[in-house]
């Protein structure tokens, strides 16, 4: 059994992760701020209380796999991997810089990253193949993939959803970071994918909704996997783009907006208030 980290510790980690995401995006003068802030609680729970993966077992064929299909929110992944000891956090000072390995989408050049992603609609098919290999080899590892709600119109997701159900991959869990916004505007305006739950259920997936910023609820959802034996599981995590920073929340302009000095200081101050309980 994994050592579960207490929920209050995870909540504190989330605040710190948010501060680091902002710090390194400001340093790089680039990054996907809104989406990194919407998915970071999910990554926090995955890496700190769900995944059997660490720098020590990363080459083990029995490790759990996390594949980030929404590759643009790599900053959230990098700060979590650094926290887990995959690489020194100071390396992130080179984020997006000339010749840095820490590029703006996940790359296997960075220790801890399973697959190169960034082009959308790729994570689920790869995850299906990896989960299928586990079934074929009678291995117990599980495969988790994080999708953005904005990438759902890519047809490859639906092809993979069919295959996952066909092969009864109950060792596969997809999580949708359902922040309801994409670069142009709301999903509803760009390409309405709702209702997501019944679509996946009709594909023979087992689906649960969860508040994607509620550490306890996320923990409980992951603890309930698989939701049904013989079915792949989908967690629709309801999130807020830019979560945690008042002026970024639910604002499309922060999809890949970079805070200026004043905005950065305001954002950090807001996060500090949360930590000190002033909020």
């Amino acid at each position: 059994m994994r050592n579960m980290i207490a929920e209050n510790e995870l909540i504190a980690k989330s605040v710190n992760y948010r501060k680091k995401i902002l710090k390194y995006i400001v340093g790089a003068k680039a990054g996907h701020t809104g989406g990194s802030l919407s998915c970071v609680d999910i990554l926090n729970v995955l890496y700190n209380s769900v995944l059997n993966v660490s720098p020590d077992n990363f080459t083990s064929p029995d490790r759990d796999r996390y594949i980030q299909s929404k590759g643009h929110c790599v900053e959230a992944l990098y700060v979590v991997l650094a926290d887990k000891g995959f690489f020194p956090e100071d390396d992130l000072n080179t984020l997006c810089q000339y010749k840095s390995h820490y590029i703006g989408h996940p790359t296997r050049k960075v220790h801890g990253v399973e697959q190169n992603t960034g082009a959308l609609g790729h994570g689920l098919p790869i995850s299906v193949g990896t989960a299928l290999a586990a079934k074929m080899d009678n291995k117990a590892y599980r495969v988790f993939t994080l999708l953005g709600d904005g990438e759902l119109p890519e047809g490859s997701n639906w092809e993979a959803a069919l295959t996952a159900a066909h092969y009864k991959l109950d060792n596969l869990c997809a999580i949708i970071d359902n922040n309801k916004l994409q670069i142009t505007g709301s999903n509803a305006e760009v390409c309405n994918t709702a209702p997501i739950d019944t679509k996946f259920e009709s594909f023979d997936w087992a689906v649960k909704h969860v508040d994607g910023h509620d550490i306890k609820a996320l923990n409980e959802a992951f603890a309930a996997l698989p939701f049904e034996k013989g079915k792949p599981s989908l967690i629709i995590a309801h999130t807020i783009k830019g979560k945690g920073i008042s002026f970024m929340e639910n604002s499309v302009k922060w999809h890949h907006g970079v805070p200026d000095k004043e905005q950065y200081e305001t954002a950090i101050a807001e996060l500090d208030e949360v930590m000190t309980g002033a909020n």
Partner: protein
Amino acid sequence: MGAVIENTTINGKPNQDIFSATLQELATIDKSIVAVTSDSRGSGKLVKFGADLPEQIVEIGIAEQNLVGVAAGLASAGKKAFAVSPACFLTARALEQIKNDVAYSNNPVRLIGISAGVSYGALGSTHHSLHDFAVLRAINNLIIAAPADNFETREAVKQAVKTNQPLYLRFGKKAMPALTDDENISFEFGKGRVIKEGDDLTIIATGETVYPALQAAEKLEQEQGIKAAVVSMHTIKPFDAELVLRLAEKTGAIITVEEHSIYGGLGEACASLLLANGYHKPFKIMGIPDEYTVTGSQTEIFNHYGLSADGIALAVTKLLVKQ
């Protein structure tokens, strides 16, 4: 060089048959080999494979992007995944998956393009893969090969299992004769095979056009005393630059022949190599011109575009006149 098999009686099998038989032979021993198909086990000659090794075949259905993505996931978990699908769809519809999930992520998927080139003949341009060399050549970290005869096919499949690097092999449907009965020949990705020696010109062909190229060379020698060297350039990438430059030096003129668009394939690979090395000698690219192909069998289409023995021989004589 051994004696060339001259008669037109086809003494071999379709390369696709050899591919599937070889794969099954290897997969029986190596349980990590998995065939991944897109409702294509019939045309991929994998029905027996599926019946005999049901635990080692994964059916995806008609969904090529997913086929390649799933194969990449399988490969990442230690499976020797052979993603088998009609070449036209595999390399066009799933191009981004080949680029990102296979080549960029270095998941060693073996991409198998079946019924390649104009093998589907009368089914028309939707089903022809005349672009695959061109698009795949521009992708880093991918071996691209088109075996010509049954020997090359068998060896390519064996080496595909051993080579832990992403690769693409294309096979056709038609029975292929042996190019040579020389038992000392070898096959290695990236090393072209000289099938026939000659001093007057070199014909560099790939895949199923090597045989008509060889027939053309035989005909030229018998009828006109022209001695053309013939190369089976089974690997398009990495390209055997050393061999091409040596033959360019020795023979002067070069003709390339391929079952592919004249744009972006074997011919342009040769052309850029020769120009970059200062060769300005007679040169011609033979392939499918920039048009949607005529209807017909593979043989009829070859004949129409001059990719027959007669057509290649005629092109050789015209080129030598210019020299």
